[in-house]
């Protein structure tokens, strides 16, 4: 039995690796993608472009603006001298926000009245708008503390002391890059498996495979192993990049992570082979792969949290292996989580894997043309 499986596996590897284009598709994109996506996927604004519309000629407004000029995260673009100048700057995305200081800002402040500044934000990306608004507030808060210290006044009672666990500087790369491990591992295994049966069906060689002494189980294992091995190597490579190149802290144990990878690959291969054995043509196989991949990625919690989804969509996500694996990768990286915290994330993936592999095995024989 082992020899037969080994022979099929060898043949599968040959079909994947023989073609130069296929080889390239397996090797180059993951490297390029982890590099490009690793740098690009982020929610942190470090270059908030802004313009100033200052109607106040006093000292206080200049002091406040100096703080913005000095801030690393802000990038000064333009000064506006008239209210009409604001719209074109924001409309055409020249700036993300405009700071408007009214004519009696300094006068009010020196009288002990609150000085108001207005921030006009481009809401087309509301997430960026809110983050940059928070940055503005932080700078104003710094200015306020300084102002009260010099000009007197009661400080505010009940101070907020905020600390964040696991990612104290709230660097969103630490959140996204471990997620890319899951993303690319899924894409690669689907690529290898989703067309593998459909290709043989279309060429007619699958019927020949079925009349050999190999049992469907042996065919299943032989078809699964290459995806498994390739997925494993690529995942390991991406994890290495995450730790060594992007310096995301790895606080957990590799055993916990790799048991997760094992379960995740099992489910991904199961789904890939199931898609492949349902499809009669490769075009259908490709459609099936996309049809699974796109929702699986978007509804995994990779970029937008699952908790924000309505309840019925949350129920759908329970069928998505990436949902579980994402938590495992992030927890082992950032929280240093142990088996105890994660055990209820492993078994759903194994279950999905077993169910889909069984379905694939049954479809081998029952879907013949």
């Amino acid at each position: 039995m082992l020899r037969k499986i080994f022979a099929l596996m060898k043949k599968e590897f040959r079909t994947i690796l023989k073609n130069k284009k296929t080889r390239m598709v397996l090797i180059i994109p993951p490297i390029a993608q982890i590099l490009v996506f690793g740098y690009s996927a982020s929610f942190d604004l470090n270059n908030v472009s802004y313009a100033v519309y200052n109607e106040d000629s006093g000292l206080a407004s200049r002091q406040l603006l100096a703080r913005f000029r000095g801030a690393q995260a802000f990038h000064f673009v333009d000064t506006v001298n008239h209210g009409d100048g604001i719209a074109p700057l924001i409309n055409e995305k020249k700036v993300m926000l405009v700071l408007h200081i009214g004519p009696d800002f300094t006068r009010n402040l020196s009288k002990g009245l609150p000085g108001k500044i207005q921030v006009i934000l481009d809401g087309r990306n509301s997430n960026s708008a809110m983050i940059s608004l928070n940055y503005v507030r932080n700078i104003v808060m710094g200015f306020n503390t300084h102002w009260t210290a010099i000009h007197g006044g009661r400080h505010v009672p009940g101070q907020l002391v905020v600390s964040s666990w696991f990612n104290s500087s709230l660097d969103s790369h630490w959140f996204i890059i471990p997620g890319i491990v899951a993303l690319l591992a899924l894409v690669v295994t689907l690529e290898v498996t989703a067309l593998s049966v459909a290709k043989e069906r279309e060429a007619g060689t699958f019927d020949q495979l079925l009349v050999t002494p190999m049992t469907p189980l042996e065919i299943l294992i032989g078809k699964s192993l290459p995806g498994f091995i390739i997925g494993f190597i690529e995942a390991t490579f991406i994890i290495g990049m995450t730790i060594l190149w992007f310096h995301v802290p790895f606080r957990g144990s590799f055993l916990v992570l790799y048991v997760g990878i094992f379960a995740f690959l099992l489910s991904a291969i199961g789904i890939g082979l199931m898609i492949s054995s349902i499809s009669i043509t490769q075009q259908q196989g490709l459609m099936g792969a996309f049809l699974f991949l796109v929702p699986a990625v978007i509804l995994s919690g990779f970029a937008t949290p699952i908790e924000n989804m309505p309840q019925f969509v949350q129920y759908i996500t329970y069928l998505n292996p990436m949902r579980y694996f994402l938590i495992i990768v992030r927890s082992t990286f950032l929280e240093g989580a142990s088996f105890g915290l994660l055990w209820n994330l492993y078994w759903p993936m194994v279950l999905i894997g077993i169910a889909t592999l069984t379905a694939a095995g049954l479809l081998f024989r029952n879907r013949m043309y």
Partner: protein
Amino acid sequence: MDVMRLRGLVRKESRQIIRDPSSIGIAFFLPVLLLLIFGYGVSLDARHVPLAMVVEKNSPQAMALVSGFNQSDYFLPIPMRSIQEAEQALMHRKVDGIIWLRHNFARQLLMGGKAPIDVIVDGVDSNKARLIEGYVTGVWFNWLERMTGEQGQRLHVPVTVEHRVWFNAEVSSRNYLVPGLIAIIMTLIGAMLTSMVVAREWERGTMEALMVTPVSMKEVIASKIIPYFILGMGGMLLSVLMAVFLFQVPLRGSMWPLIVSSSLFMFTAINMGLLISVVAKSQFVAGQIAIVITFLPAFILSGFVFDIRTMPVVIQWLTHLVAARYFVDILQTLFLAGDIWPLFLTNSAWLAVMALFFLMIIKKKSRKLLE
């Protein structure tokens, strides 16, 4: 180009589409399904965030703060007895944050000291953590105003910040994610529909049969583009209708720019799919390339969810190679801001350049040659 020959080829291609229901399914069923799931599922605005509330000693001041959290729509406060219990809950991802008022909170407040309110957030999802921080600050500020108001004094803050969010006053991330989704879905559909059609002819040997006919390569390519273009535009129309009527995303721009840019983008996406097909020559390879170069770049590098302005400069240049980027920009602006011609024209020009570039390579690569 001969019209009659072209018509014959288009008819053959259309029949192939109609007889394989999966293509029609992709063009119409898929956008509806994806937009439904994602339109409801994708949002960056946290609501009802579970928050552990640890109040070590009850006092009117502490109660006022807790009730502030209870009334907020953003939070779902869960009372806990001790900080240890709350930390356990945070470890097990039962809560996303902790508010901790120590037993001497009220005393320190009355003595006029800086009474600390400890806020611990789970930083794993840093974007969410930041949002939570912002919401907590809002609740805290309301509480401060009420506290000082009760003591008969006005809260004195030197500079206050007022904000106006243009184009999206209710600050709903769905309003910009749904237009972006249309661009992503259309990228996929364009690539999926066409990435295999030329490779299929090569693989089945029908390309060789075509070569001995008087049909020119130009006509073959045109016959692949036309039916899929019509199919794709149908899907596009459905998506826009859903965005406006189902998800209530305001459409502030006018129809013409929407139609022009959609056609340009569809044309670019189909050309990209065809190019993959022409280069790969085998469906297996074409499928793999399509998965790698269409979905993920469109998802991550288009500005759909990750703002391009947050990326390093080198990567910002790289995003210019992703067609979806221009369309995301056009759609977000057309939907939320209206007709802003400078943005519309530059982005459309880029799309046109890309489409022509793809077309040129397709033409060059698809000679009547056998290998």
